[in-house]
């Protein structure tokens, strides 16, 4: 069967099935299980009202439980077994991994990513948001800087390969270098700094996200505070750093953490740019080196990533509990 036909069929079965489930289960609940008949109408309606939320929630709970909750446990258990999956090795995978220089390089690089990417993206996002705030063509400028968000990490990596290429006829950086008489270099092979060249791709993609949200936050600042500051003689820089930034600090924190989480998931850029060579591996790409080869090691890496995000996850859940 051709994939297209299969896809169309899936949509029909999937959507139709979902609709049939929701409609059918509600109908069964109202007509068959707890019919609103005369004798005990009130009690039945009350009981149906108690059950109905769970009918609405069931598919989502099943999918979430299966694809996100179970894997946390499943991955941890799998990480305690060896490559074949039949011998229990306890924390052996972790201990072995911690002693490996490749893993340590990946952890080190990953911390570079977590520090640099959110900081740079938020900085540029805030800069563009502030600069375009009162610009007549600000909307167009923002739209163009936002655009990389729509591009895949693979596509973005290819785009930047054209920037970094060692051949001065392809790579614009080497072309500029050649213009000033420098010998061609491959930026992706310069130790340590190559990490930053790869991170720039991520910054390029995430700045638009930071800009959109911070731009809305800047607009939301009450005008009285700004007017008062201007009357008191604040110059534009004081106005920005002492009046505006403190008022949107909460939003800056949200943007910062969101980009941090994204950074922890992205393996595509490193995979496409260097394949993890030249000491550029980060944890997600390091994990993919072992995927399909050594599931014990792969799940151990995944669990390390999970441990890194856990504190913020707990914080988020606390916040959500407060709101409800």
């Amino acid at each position, binding site marked *: 069967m051709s994939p297209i036909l299969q896809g169309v069929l899936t949509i029909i079965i999937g959507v139709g099935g979902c609709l049939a489930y929701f409609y059918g289960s509600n109908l069964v609940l109202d007509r068959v299980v707890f019919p609103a008949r005369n004798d005990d109408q009130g009690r039945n309606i009350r009981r149906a009202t108690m059950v109905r939320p769970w009918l609405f929630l069931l598919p989502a709970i099943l999918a*979430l439980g299966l694809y996100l909750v179970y894997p946390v446990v499943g991955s941890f258990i799998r990480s305690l077994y060896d490559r074949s999956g039949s011998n229990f090795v306890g924390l052996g995978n972790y201990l072995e991994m911690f002693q490996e220089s490749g893993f340590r390089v990946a952890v080190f690089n990953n911390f570079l990513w977590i520090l640099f990417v959110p900081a740079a993206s938020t900085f540029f996002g805030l800069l563009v948001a502030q600069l375009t705030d009162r610009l007549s063509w600000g909307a167009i400028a923002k739209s163009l800087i936002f*655009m990389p968000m729509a591009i895949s990490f693979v596509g973005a990596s290819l785009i930047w390969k054209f920037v970094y290429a060692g051949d001065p006829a392809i790579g614009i950086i080497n072309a500029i270098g050649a213009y000033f008489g420098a010998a061609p270099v491959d930026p992706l092979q310069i130790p340590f700094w190559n990490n930053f060249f790869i991170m720039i791709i991520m910054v390029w993609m995430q700045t638009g996200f930071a800009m959109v949200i911070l731009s809305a936050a800047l607009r939301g600042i009450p005008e009285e505070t700004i007017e008062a500051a201007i009357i008191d003689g604040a110059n534009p820089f004081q106005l920005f750093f002492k009046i505006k930034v403190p008022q949107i600090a909460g939003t800056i924190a949200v943007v910062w953490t969101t980009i941090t989480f994204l950074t922890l998931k992205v393996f595509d850029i490193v995979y496409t740019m260097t394949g993890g060579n030249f000491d550029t591996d980060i944890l997600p790409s390091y994990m993919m080196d072992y995927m399909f080869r050594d599931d014990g090691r792969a799940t151990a890496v*995944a669990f390390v990533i999970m441990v890194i995000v856990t504190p913020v996850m707990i914080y988020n*859940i606390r916040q959500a509990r407060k709101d409800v």
Partner: protein
Amino acid sequence: MDNLAGQKSSLSVVTNLAVIFLVVIWLVPTVGLLVSSFRERDQISETGWWASLFPVEAAVRMRPSASGASMDGDYGVLRGNLFDGETGSVSAFGLTGRDPGAAQVGETYARYEVTVTEDGELDDERIEIAYPSDEEPQFPETTEDGLPITPGSAILQRSLTVASNGDFTYIDKGEITRAPSIYVVTKQPPDFGLQNYRQILTSDGMDRAFINTLTVTVPATVIPILIAAFAAYALAWMEFPGRGWLVAAVVGLLVVPLQLALVPMLTLHNKLGIGQSFLGIWLAHTGFGLPLAVYLLRNYMIGLPRDIIESAKVDGATDFQVFTRIVLPLSFPALASFAIFQFLWTWNDLLVAKVFLPSGSDSWVMTVKIADDLLGSRGGDWGILAAAAFVSIAVPLLVFFLMQKYLVRGLLAGSVK
């Protein structure tokens, strides 16, 4: 705020310049890719895309027809025009691909057989020289290897003279029966075309990958929306014990790294007989997309006016009717936002496709095709890579520019309380 005091126009000039600078920096990489994707392979390797609007100096091999050759003593002579009636301009030429620009226009390039002395013995060597056409050839005293040449021993083997308009004279020892190979360095006009696109879409299998991507994307976008919408309604407008904890759980699941699910879920898929398949990736994308979907939709639905929903319930509408008739239509902006997110995410995904789809080339999506196949097999073919990348990003870019309003709204709903 525009008319407030303290905003000087000099600052606004600086602001404009700074924004122009940033926008240019942000656009340059993408423009480079787009321009390169339309350029012809030889031109890409000669000049950067930023010079693509100017003529390119490139060496080409030409094979003028041997018909019309005549004999002059022992030598065959072929005269003609390399451009065959069309215009063009030659700056240099040669007889070998190794050194295609060995002689300048106005010179004659010739190959001679000479006698040399090597280790006291006489030997024959070939030398190539270029000299002004209107003068007699001057022979060097030694070959390139430093062997002394016996003066007067040179015998012409082959010679070529090319004028800048393409007129040439080719002389060869013996009769000329086959088309000679002539290398010329010419200025070629900028050459833009669709040849790269034609190649990847017809012979390189990108068309198949495009269809596969579409096949993954559409069900993986539609199904989670439906499931999430019902759940979001329950979490927003239905009273039941444990609701708060469920909302908190969804928020927590938002940040669970996808990597955790790869091994256990693939194992489970294999056990269930789904294996690596399109069905598997649809289910996986549905699961991974749900937390954001539920979170976004619930945040939106809870902001809908309470009056409308309660008056409908008072009028005897069931929750199912309230949901389908009132809440769902009113939530269209949030549904659109999430649909765009999920579409972009599944279209652009590489990780889930690598793990949950079969590894054969039949089921490669575009990201896998580019990252695992084209980058390896066509690593140096920049025009092809650029065209492939652009095919893969064209649809998301279109969606982005058409639906930007909903995208921005969704981002704001997800991040700002």
